[in-house]
């Protein structure tokens, strides 16, 4: 019986050992001064704990082994000893003071968001991140880049499964980056472990945090506050690059933004709109309405065969722009007016000409623009 138990335990131990080769057992390698302080604090506390652990459970184990009735040990009826009780109250208190001192210094350092070199606003959406570089005037969305096939086990999973995005946050190495967080719908949290930052993003409020990346690299994190069904699918990727490369990236982004701003004047064909719309759909709509347009019965309505999608185009544009409010309460269909006219026109065109929907309509960006309030 005991042998069987031991073998089971051995199996578990072997599996733990097998895990060693692949997985890590500690906080990720710190990549910023604050992350390093957190790492060192954790190490310090772990050593204190190990010492206490050995002391306390060494004593307990000794008692269990030596002071057994089966070993013929007689109970000594001692109890109540004020000196002992004062000692084991004071000593832990002193240890705690020793731990609190370095922790206090780190708390104050983490809170010091003054004099940043660069400020980025991160906005949490269900379920993606929006970034605004406040001085540079760059804005973009960052959505999960892992294909649905990998999530649904229809394709082998890539190296950065669930931790990859279409547009990473690019920052210069060695500069103090202040991240301002807020949210559009529910509370999210912007977290990059290697940089030692985690800050809740709260709708209607602005909070801030900061980091300074030590060296170039790509640092991956995830939303850390439960924010609904795709909470696990809105990663954060920060790419730290040398300052020259950063400057080049900023210039390129500005050019792209300028080009996008001109777009509404362009004449789009139905095919072009559909092709672009499919991408917008995959980034914004697919989580609820599903790739087959059938939604989730009882929770998220189907678009395929929907009266709104096959009805008058103004009504559908209104839904996408303003969201759906039922009985004075916002629904899961939130406003998408943060998307560009082109994106909205494209995604509406795509939904009107996909699955069972065959309206043949091409909605132009100008129509969307006209309906914006």
């Amino acid at each position, binding site marked *: 019986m005991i042998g069987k*138990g031991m073998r089971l335990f051995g199996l578990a131990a072997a*599996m*733990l050992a097998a895990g060693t080769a692949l*997985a890590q057992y*500690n906080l*990720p390698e710190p990549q910023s001064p604050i992350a390093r302080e*957190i790492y060192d604090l954790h190490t310090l506390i772990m050593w204190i*704990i190990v010492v*206490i*652990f050995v002391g*306390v*459970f060494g004593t307990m184990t000794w*008692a*269990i082994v030596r002071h*057994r*009735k089966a070993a013929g*040990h*007689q*109970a000594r*009826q*001692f*109890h109540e*000893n004020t000196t*002992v*009780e004062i000692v*084991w109250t004071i000593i*832990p*208190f002193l240890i*705690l003071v020793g*731990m*609190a001192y370095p922790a206090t210094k780190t*708390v*104050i350092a*983490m*809170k010091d968001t003054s004099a940043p070199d660069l400020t980025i606003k991160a906005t949490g959406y269900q379920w993606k991140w929006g970034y605004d570089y406040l001085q540079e005037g760059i804005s973009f969305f960052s959505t999960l880049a892992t294909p649905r096939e990998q*999530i*649904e086990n229809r394709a082998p*999973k890539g*190296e950065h*499964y*669930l931790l990859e995005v279409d547009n990473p946050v690019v920052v210069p190495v060695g500069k103090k980056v202040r991240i301002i967080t807020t949210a559009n*719908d529910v*509370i999210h*949290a912007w977290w990059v*472990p290697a940089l*030692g930052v*985690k*800050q809740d993003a*709260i*709708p*209607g*409020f602005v909070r801030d945090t900061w980091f300074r990346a030590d060296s170039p690299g790509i640092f991956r994190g*995830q939303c*850390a*506050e*439960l924010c609904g*069904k795709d909470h*696990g699918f809105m990663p954060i990727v920060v790419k730290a690059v040398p300052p020259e490369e950063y400057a080049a990236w900023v210039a390129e982004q500005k050019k792209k933004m300028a080009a996008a701003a001109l777009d509404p004047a362009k004449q789009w064909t139905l095919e072009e709109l559909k092709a672009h719309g499919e991408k917008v759909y995959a980034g914004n709509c697919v989580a609820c309405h599903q790739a087959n347009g059938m939604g989730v019965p009882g*929770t998220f309505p189907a678009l395929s065969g929907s009266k709104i999608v096959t009805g008058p185009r103004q009504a559908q544009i209104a839904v996408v722009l303003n969201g759906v409010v039922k009985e004075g*309460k916002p629904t899961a269909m939130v406003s998408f007016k943060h998307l560009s006219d082109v994106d909205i026109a494209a995604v509406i065109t795509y939904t009107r000409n996909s699955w069972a929907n065959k309206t043949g309509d091409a909605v132009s960006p100008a129509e969307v623009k006209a309906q914006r309030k």
Partner: protein
Amino acid sequence: MQVAHAHNGHPGHGEHAHHPSGIMRWITTTNHKDIGTLYLVFSLIMFFVGGVLALGIRAELFQPGLQFWRPEFFNELTTMHGLIMVFGAIMPAFVGFANWQIPMMIGAPDMAFARMNNWSFWLLPPAALLLVASFFVPGGATAAGWTIYAPLSIQMGPGMDLAIFALHIMGASSIMGSINIITTILNMRAPGMTLMRMPLFAWTWLITAYLLIAVMPVLAGAVTMLLTDRHFGTHFFNAAGGGDPVLFQHIFWFFGHPEVYIMILPGFGIISQIVPTFARKPLFGYSSMVYATASIAILSFIVWAHHMFTVGMPAAAQLFFMYATMLIAVPTGVKVFNWIATMWRGSLTFETPMLFACGFIFVFSMGGFTGLVLAITPVDIQLQDTYYVVAHFHYVLVAGSLFALFGGAYYWMPKWTGHMYDETLGKWHFWLSMIFFNVTFFPMHFSGLAGMPRRIPDYALQFADFNMISSIGAFGFGLSQLIFVYVVWKCVRGGEKAKDRVWEAAEGLEWQLPSPAPYHTWETPPVVR
């Protein structure tokens, strides 16, 4: 403690004659032992319901990718697992122990308010029904986490409303139960039993009952505000209407932190009864144990925001809550040191209750250590909402509260049923629970440190090994609990006749009663000298 005049209710008093039998006995009962049994059976059923939900979670997390559930259903599983285990399993189980044991331990004939006692219990099944039924309403059960943070909980479907009503009802039940326990302990102790001569289990429950009365109304307030935000156009938690989503977290955790002590303090009481019995010597520091329990209870009101270190509080607030949280380590340490000092130079035997007590001290302390790690604000900010936190609170709640409950059940079951339980199976239950518990939850420390957020249905590949081990452990742990059901069943049906003083060195009034304890006990109070 000596009883001078022990006039116990003799069996065969004819007391059953006035009571309905069959199902009506249980529906109309005002007997503390019957009600205790009802609470314990109810909590055991809910423990298995919550356990099945947990296995649903672990099945999905066995491998990366989505295998079994849609992400929204996964969130329903995590939410309902939490709500059911906290409000349906752990809390009612401790109330069950209080009902059975407190009158017998303090020499009272019953609880102070016998009819209200019946009502406190019978509120629970409808509440549980609301929770379970919420899976079947449109949109399913609430998927906002057991912490039901606004504004996410405002987005939920009607399942959220059912959960809110369930919380209201269970809160009312807890408050009534607490009033009953406080009144019983303060007014119905046997002559000579001063407060400082009370068994520690009664002490810890007295303090817990005060905590419950203080914080359950706060929870009721929070969920009522949520309800009016959802349906009646208020904006308590909506910034667009001048409200604040973080306000919900402050109110919730002002309830929530004392709540975690509500779930552990009676456990401390049970352990403090078991350890001296099997060490065959008195508890090392009785009065310091009482003071430590009271200190923990008082501190629990000023540490709530350590659950909120990432919401962006000012540095001064972060520091205050960090220091206050660290202070809790002092009285908790005093308790652990006391238990070990009680074992020291004793004459130890290791029957199943003692195994669970030793397991409790060992594994609960691990949860205490990780609690200390999490108290350090900068480290907490890194680990908040990761699997490290999941590991931490399962170490204190499963290995803490649950192991204490199992220990208590094995300790007093012979007194309740009149039969000895199957010691071999009890030991198997302990060892399998202990091993599988650690296989399940120890790797979660590593997945949390490595950066795995909690409440996600799918994860990056570097977390795959730890999750697979956790899932295997969880199924082992879940199956091991079936042994307990079998042991209880067997013990109720028959077995070796239990002595009145079941354990050689057991001290306390309950051991002076016959086994099984008669339907009515201490009709004439004993005199404690």
